[in-house]
């Protein structure tokens, strides 16, 4: 069943899909070459010369933010678990409001990285810079590995590469490794040569493609149900085999376990924890923060976040139609047959819609188109992550710590290019090794780390007069360590067993069990802990506070004096 299904998913569409993939690679590489010719100096490399307009940067922000996990993943979760997938969508959108409130302040006070903002509050900035660089690189690399492992499996799936089958003369396993390597090589290429300009344009192209594809599919789905949302939901509930429970919360998150009241409570707390991390993490994600600096002033930054809110909101509203449409039109069984995680729900829906409009060829073309949108999504997001961590390594660690704040511009940009190459290569190697592991939890962990480590430092630096270096460092390391330790001893790493199949759902195989923290997502505990560490560090730290610097930062964050 699975094999036959896979063959039909690829089918004739494979040639078209592959052709579109190649076209996409050519276009993005052309952008990179253009960007390389127009990149000269640090402002260009780190911040795209700050020439992007608000709407352009808004598109790029949306392109940077909406990963394959949110496009294919959320459509898949909705198609399999119903309403609970939509809860994810809401979290991803609501997260932009805290970002909107700090974006202008950040844009006005920083130049290239988050650490620029933090470092202005302290007299000796090297420890703060190091802490910020450590946290930036950790968050980015974890997110990156999750994306690349996902990319390998996903692209193999979209191209119809299956165990036992061969692709261009390679076995399925080799093909998957090759996919990871090719994606990694492309992302290194974009960042090393194109810098922020190249990366931003790749993200703009991706966001435009994604919005176009999603809108087209939504209109087609709703058209099939006479533009009656209630009819669509009814059909989805009917096809799901779960009836009206499918349209209500509780199938995936916060599941009720009869007879185990504590287990039920933990499930629910786990869901609350996830929601918190999603909402508070976005404003601290390094690849989102570095994007704030690509526009000319705070007003443009505000406009760009407003655009991002509009685009992200519209997209996640459309996931309702995509997810429920996939259940109603494709059916749960077929989705499960292709991928138990549901990642192929959107491509399958595209094929079904295309087939309905223009027969077999229409189906193949739509499938190929949506597959290449997913491919573009993956490329844009990984490039953004590498860009953010390379910037932080070069600007914060090399420029401000090793070179004591006075490197030559050329030198620092060269280091940034090299750092991009280094981080990209490390990520490729780690992703190839982690290929068979269940690493989906790394995305949630990255959000939790961003919320627990970066957010306290940013918020206190901007709004708390007494905050100091010790508080910054304590907050960052405390939040980071709490998230990692809690996840290491949580069910996602060891001890979670599928009650039906008896297989391990954790990172470690069945039988290894050292978990004591009951929740999958550490946010509920680690975010308050991060804030607490920052407060404690501030009061215990020996370096006095510097109210003058706070006043200065306040004026600057409001007016942008010195940042333009």
């Amino acid at each position: 069943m699975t094999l036959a299904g896979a063959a039909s998913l690829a089918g004739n569409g494979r040639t078209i899909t592959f052709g579109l993939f190649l076209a996409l690679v050519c276009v993005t590489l052309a952008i990179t070459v253009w960007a390389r010719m127009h990149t000269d100096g640090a402002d260009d490399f780190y911040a795209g010369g700050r020439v992007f307009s608000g709407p352009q940067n808004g598109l790029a922000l949306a392109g940077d933010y909406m990963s394959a996990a949110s496009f294919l993943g959320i459509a898949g979760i909705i198609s399999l678990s119903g309403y609970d997938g939509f809860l994810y969508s809401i979290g991803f959108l609501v997260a932009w409001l805290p970002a909107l409130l700090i974006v202008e302040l950040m844009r006005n006070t920083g130049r290239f990285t988050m650490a620029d903002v933090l470092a202005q509050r302290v007299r000796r900035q090297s420890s703060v810079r190091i802490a910020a660089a450590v946290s930036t690189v950790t968050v980015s690399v974890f997110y990156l590995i999750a994306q690349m492992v996902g990319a390998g499996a996903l692209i193999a799936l979209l191209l119809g590469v299956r165990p036992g089958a061969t692709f261009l003369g390679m076995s399925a396993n080799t093909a998957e490794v090759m996919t990871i390597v090719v994606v990694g090589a492309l992302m290194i290429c974009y960042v090393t040569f194109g810098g922020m300009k190249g990366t931003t344009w790749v993200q703009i192209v991706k966001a435009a493609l994604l919005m176009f594809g999603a809108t087209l599919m939504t209109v087609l789905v709703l058209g099939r149900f006479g533009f009656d949302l209630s009819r669509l939901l009814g059909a989805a509930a009917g096809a799901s085999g779960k009836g009206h429970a499918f349209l209500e919360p509780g199938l995936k998150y916060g599941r009720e376990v009869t007879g185990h009241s504590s287990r039920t409570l933990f499930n629910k707390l786990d869901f609350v924890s996830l929601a918190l991390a999603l909402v508070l993490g976005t404003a601290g994600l390094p690849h989102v923060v570095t994007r704030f600096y690509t526009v000319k002033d705070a007003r443009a930054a505000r406009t760009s976040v407003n655009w991002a809110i509009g685009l992200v909101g519209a997209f996640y509203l459309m996931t309702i139609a995509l997810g429920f449409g996939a259940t109603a039109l494709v059916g749960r069984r077929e989705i499960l047959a292709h991928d138990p995680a549901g990642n192929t729900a959107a491509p399958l829906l595209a094929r079904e819609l295309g087939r309905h409009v223009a027969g077999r060829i229409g189906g193949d073309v739509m499938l190929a188109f949506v597959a290449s949108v997913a491919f573009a999504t993956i490329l844009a997001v990984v490039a953004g992550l590498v860009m953010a961590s390379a910037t932080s390594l070069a600007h914060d660690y090399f420029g401000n710590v090793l070179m004591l704040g006075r490197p030559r511009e050329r030198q620092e940009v060269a280091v940034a290019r090299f750092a991009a190459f280094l981080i990209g290569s490390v990520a490729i190697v780690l992703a190839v090794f982690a290929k068979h592991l269940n690493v989906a939890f790394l995305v949630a962990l990255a959000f939790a780390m961003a919320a627990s480590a970066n957010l306290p430092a940013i918020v206190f630096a901007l709004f708390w007069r007494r905050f100091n270096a010790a508080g910054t460092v304590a907050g960052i390391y405390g939040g980071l360590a709490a998230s990692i330790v809690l996840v290491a001893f949580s069910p996602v790493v060891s001890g979670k067993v599928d009650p039906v199949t008896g297989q391990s759902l954790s990172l470690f195989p069945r039988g290894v069990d050292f978990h004591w923290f009951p929740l999958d997502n550490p946010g509920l505990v680690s975010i308050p802990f991060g804030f607490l560490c920052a407060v404690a560090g501030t009061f215990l730290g020996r370096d006095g506070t510097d109210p003058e610097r706070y006043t200065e930062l306040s004026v600057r964050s409001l007016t942008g004096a010195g940042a333009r």
Partner: protein
Amino acid sequence: MLLTFLGWYLLYVLAAAFARDVMAYRLFGNINVALVAGVLQFVAAFVLAWRYTRYARAALDPLAAQILADAEERVDEALRRAAGSAIPPYGTGSGDERPYLGPTPPDGTVSYAAAEPRGGTTPYLGPTPPDGMPLPADPGPPPSWHRSAGGTR
């Protein structure tokens, strides 16, 4: 306002976790409270973004502009007072007499001129032009591109 909104989001999350019966109540057709509440989150987010933008345009931007203008005026005035009436107000003189206006950068990295022997001491290190062309007098102040606590760009 943000707190109200985050509270509303938290209420929604808690309701999704603990008030399943309410969320499952069907309003009309197959549309239930959960779906309406979810879509309302989107609406609330859009409204808040719009309200904030309006507030920022009406209140924050003029305030920022005023503070900046005040600061420049005060600096100009101080300059004039310090040098007596010899120096005309900024903009009418021959050169830019204004000192560095930004705050002192951290770590005492005041400027490149202090950090590196560029600028005044070694004006031009390149090869002598063949035709005896006069050397450029002063390459000007070094770029402040790197100063984290920004220069006046």
